[in-house]
């Protein structure tokens, strides 16, 4: 799995961190999401998929 994060789209909602803290964090200053693991370990894959599904700004895509 490969996770792609488009920071230009990100609105800083932090939904991704809630569903997948192994894969995402937020920058301190503006809350924009950062990718911690472009290729998440197997046990974090479903969380990453969930993050892509719920991101209210469509900033995350997951390629299987």
């Amino acid at each position, binding site marked *: 799995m490969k996770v792609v994060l488009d920071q230009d789209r990100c*609105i*800083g*909602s*932090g*939904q991704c*961190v*809630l569903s997948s803290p192994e894969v995402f964090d*937020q*920058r*301190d*200053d*503006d*809350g924009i999401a950062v990718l911690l693991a472009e290729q998440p370990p197997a046990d974090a894959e479903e969380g990453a998929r969930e993050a892509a*599904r*719920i991101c*209210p*700004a*469509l900033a995350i895509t997951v390629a299987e």
Partner: protein
Amino acid sequence: MLSQVVVVGASAAGLTAAEALRREGFAGELTVIGDEVHPPYDRPPLSKQILRGGWEPDRIVLRTADLLADLKASWLLGTPAAGLDPVGRKVVLADGREIGYDGLVIATGATPRRLPFGHDVAGVHLLRTLDDTLALRDGLRSAGSVAIVGAGFLGAEVAAVAREARLEVTMIDPLPAPMIRQFGAELAGLLAQLHQSRGVNLRCGVGVTALTGDDGRVTGVDLSDGSHVTADLVLVAIGAIPATTWLAGSGLSLGDGVECDQYCVAAPGIVAAGDVASWHHPGIGRRRLEHRMNATEQATIAAKNLLGAQLPFAPVSYFWTDQYDVKLQVYGRSGDDLDFRIVAGTPTEDRFAALYGNGHHVTGALTWNLPRQARLLRTHVANQTPWQEALASIPTGELEVGR
């Protein structure tokens, strides 16, 4: 087992429901009906990036053509639904066709509320759809002065975009401050200052009595205090009404939206989600949310429940708004009837976090240019932390405000 599911509504909630149905194993016939001709697109950028001109419409499509094809659904776009027969289990389209179902998802969203007058002259705009936005964007390019009727989300976001484009902007609202119902008096006062400091002529506490026109084009707005605002473009942004007209006579309970139980079920075999749905939030009571994230969350739960799950829908709601360089994020309930307390930062720093409470516990968390802290404070909303306990816990370093 369902064999034929119809989703009425092809925006965020409808699309999400369709995807969730497939993901949960629904293998039958799936039909998605939409009144707009466009494939599903995202609405929040309409009043921001698209209106500003930074993004073009191709950037807000919700799914690529390939992903839509993977859904193996029949798409009936540009074909509004006109009626529902829940006994015969048929959706009737405006063109007279009837589409049978054994499971139905209602996700028709909301339509902008109109003034009782004035919409028949050129230069008067509403904003809900992509086509509305492109028309408004064109209008703003040739306008000198803009009157915005309504200082809610949409009005305030458009005012910001119009000021950034150096137009003369007047924002009018009968309430005493922008977004006061959503945020309460203290924060609404800060929003009023923000807009005024950026040059918006803010006219609060007055209503609009007429739109004036000349030769079929709008020239301005008459206000209830007897004054007149000159404008060559008027945006009417006075809220939205759940799109339930097509359900009249169906027997479904229609109050402020399609009334559902806590499982988003409106009637046997019928669920509703998104802006159109009014449901019973366990613990909070009847609610209807016009928030982007709610469309996704509610449609996912509604789809699962249509397939037989029994999941109560009890979200910690979330919304955001961007105005100028200010980013507001809110978890849970904020509003005029709630306590409000700034718990970190200050308005003068232009960065702060605040909690809302109902006299007993925390109901909501708001941040102004501190988005990361919104997520941290969300815990207090989810846990309904007692108000005093939450206030006492925060200054001890849980939440740091730094540049």
